[in-house]
């Protein structure tokens, strides 16, 4: 199935999550996470919980841990901004929390509105005390996720993996506009 590293990373990350016993998958959809979300939805051992806003996922996964389950939060960098105050819960109470963040406003961005949050994502998370790891090539994503997951669940703290836009590719709005049927 592995055509190349670019298409394989979501499959490898899904396998890692599965092997680690991740059960609750909290998501606000993002194009960069589309394949991983599909894989999790197909997986009967996982429960995908769609959120209205990303902070719900932070609270959900604190509840999951209280109840004895592990989870992961999948979101776009703009969603990190929605999570800030809720993150004080896992930080202050030492809950493990794994967040996989696909970056916008990071590399080759077209949309000016994505820049402020994308540019601040890492600094904002680190200001709160969240550990941040970056992956900027498809090849390194699984290893970075694996390390981040172990940090989160072995040392009881929130850890975010930022999956760079350089890896994901910037959305080309002009192409999208051109492809709209007349």
């Amino acid at each position, binding site marked *: 199935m592995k055509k190349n590293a670019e298409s394989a990373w979501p499959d490898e990350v899904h396998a890692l999550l599965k092997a680690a016993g991740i059960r609750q998958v909290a998501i606000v959809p993002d194009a960069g996470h589309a394949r991983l979300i599909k894989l999790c939805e197909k997986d009967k051992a996982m429960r995908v919980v769609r959120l209205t806003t990303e902070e*719900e996922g*932070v*609270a959900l996964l604190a509840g999951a841990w209280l109840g*004895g389950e592990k989870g992961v939060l999948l979101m776009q960098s703009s969603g990190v901004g929605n999570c800030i105050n*809720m993150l004080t819960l896992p930080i202050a109470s030492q809950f493990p929390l794994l967040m996989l963040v696909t970056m916008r406003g990071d590399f080759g961005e077209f949309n000016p509105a994505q820049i402020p949050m994308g540019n601040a994502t890492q600094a904002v998370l680190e200001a709160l005390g969240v550990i941040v790891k970056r992956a900027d090539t498809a090849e390194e994503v699984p290893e970075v996720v694996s390390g981040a997951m172990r940090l989160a669940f072995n040392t009881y703290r929130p850890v975010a993996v930022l999956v760079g836009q350089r890896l994901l590719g910037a959305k080309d709005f002009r192409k999208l506009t051109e492809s709209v049927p007349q």
Partner: protein
Amino acid sequence: MSKSLHRREVVKELLAKRGDSLVIGGLGAPAWDITDAGDHDLNFPLWGAMGGAAMIGLGVALAQPKKKVLVLTGDGEMLMGLGALATIAVQQPRNLCIVVLDNERYGETGMQRTHTGHGVDLAGMAKAAGFARTLKVNTQADVSRLKQRIYSGEGALFAQVKVDAERLPLVLPPREGSLLKNRFRIALLGPEAAQQ
């Protein structure tokens, strides 16, 4: 409003025969209310995370489908996380009950009015979102009905309980989140939970 319900009495009654139910207390007065009813290892009172109580309840409920999960929270706290009503309704956890103790006030900050004091109907919103069971509680008889529905019914339940806007002495649970988390997990999952 003269015959209105007193929050501490309501909570005491709802928790009197809680058995092994798992209880989340929303930030502020509900956290003090569940503590006043008797601090318990299977209580998780919140000292922050405003707007998150219902979602914490969902996470627990999905992880523990055979246990009753009861979220007791306030109108201000629920209003801050209204999207959770939609998220929970989509999941339809059969074992999750959300009870909003609605005094129409932000009690911790000086009793300023919340939107429910201007007619916002939380139970109506939960019903529209798709909760299997919703209930408005205004009288003592309603409280008895709520208690019965919590412990014998099935399907996600949302109740809006109109209570007096009383200023009550604080009854504080432990403040240390790690302690609250660990005692809850050990009581629920056994001593091995501390080794995970």
